[in-house]
């Protein structure tokens, strides 16, 4: 359990770091009126970023994603190296799980919008959706055990 937990924690930390990078890039693209930034070889992130679905109450979706990954990174880093390195309170794995679940569900909705409403796919957005889905899957076992015990693995 310990080695599996550590393996999962490290994998989630790595994914959170990559997620921060992807979300930061997308946020930068969203604030780039000249569209000088490349969308990458696949898809069209400019169309997606300029659609009416790119904001939630005036806040760019990419910025929300960045906030999510930063929050996850903070929780995971505190668990790995910080005050919770030896024993994390039970809410920590639950919080990681809940954030990853919300991120996965919302990413699924955004991917649906890209495919069937906006009619343009954004490779970086898909990458973010895959990252948060992987984090959700990794967070799942610890959330289940955390609900029944005082401390979780993550």
């Amino acid at each position, binding site marked *: *359990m*310990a080695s599996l*937990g550590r393996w999962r924690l490290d994998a989630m930390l790595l994914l959170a770091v990559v997620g921060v990078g992807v979300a930061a890039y997308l946020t930068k693209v969203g604030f780039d*009126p*000249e*569209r000088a930034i490349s969308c990458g070889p696949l898809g*069209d992130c*400019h*169309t997606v970023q*300029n*659609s*009416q*679905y790119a*904001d*939630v*109450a005036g806040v760019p*979706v990419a910025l*929300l994603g960045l906030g999510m990954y930063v929050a996850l990174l903070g929780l995971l880093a505190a668990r790995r190296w910080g005050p919770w390195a030896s024993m994390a309170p*039970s*809410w920590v794995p*639950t*919080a990681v*799980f*809940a*954030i990853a*679940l*919300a991120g996965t*569900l*919302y990413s699924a*909705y955004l991917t649906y919008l890209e495919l069937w*409403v*906006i*009619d*343009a796919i954004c490779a970086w957005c898909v990458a973010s959706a895959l990252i948060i889905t992987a984090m959700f899957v990794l967070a799942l076992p610890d*959330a*289940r*055990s*955390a*609900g*029944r015990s005082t401390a979780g693995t993550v």
Partner: protein
Amino acid sequence: MSNDRRRRRAERASNRTRPTSPVQRRAPASRGGLRGTIDSFGGPVTVGAIGLALVFVIGLVFLNRPGSSIDNTPFEPKERAQVDAKTWGDPLAPVRIVMFEDFQCPVCRRFTEELEPQLASEFIETGRVVVEYHHMAFLGAESVAAASASECANEQGAFWPYHDILFLRQGAENAGVFSTSNLKTFAEQMAAAIPDLGWDQAAFDACVDGGQTTAIVEAETGEARTAGVSSTPSFLVNGEAIVGLPTYDSLRSTIERVEAAASGGS
């Protein structure tokens, strides 16, 4: 962690060996139903977290949905000189801007509202630039419907005022703003604002219902894709590509550069 493992193994062992009392026999039954279901999902805390996450996502989806209401700002027609079908300006102007737009694209609307007035006064009305509109109807069914209706207006020489009212009325993508009935209403509003247009609403309605102009829109969109256009607005300024909404200063400098090149080359 290894202590944890030892403790759980011991608990499992004691469960196997402990004599079964009537109370224990009732225990599995008491953990069935809702409580059992909640436990199978990781207990009340985890189920509460799942609930919170769901509420949060539903809230985001609700807030994210762009308003599907129609902007009912009164339509005020713009003065446009030297209009011919979907081109605007002196056909002999040294600079030709081919623009690829979608009536559902909010950035295209911004181009029309924010940049076009300056472009008109500085370059189009002075005979230095001619603008040519091309459909890139790629944001869904209502993009094609709106573009097809604009071709119906074009048949009556009213492409540009109809173009203007479509951008004015633009709302949520594929949310019914550019429904067939609304497209006809917008034409009525346009005609009411331009009494000398010579507008035949019945002919327009028949054209919209007939759908014969959809082929034009699909052909233009196909040509745009073949030319490498993948988003809107996109512009070709004497062949030089601008993708997305430029600032007016960068658009002006591009126009002046290609204008100098055109006059230098002639």
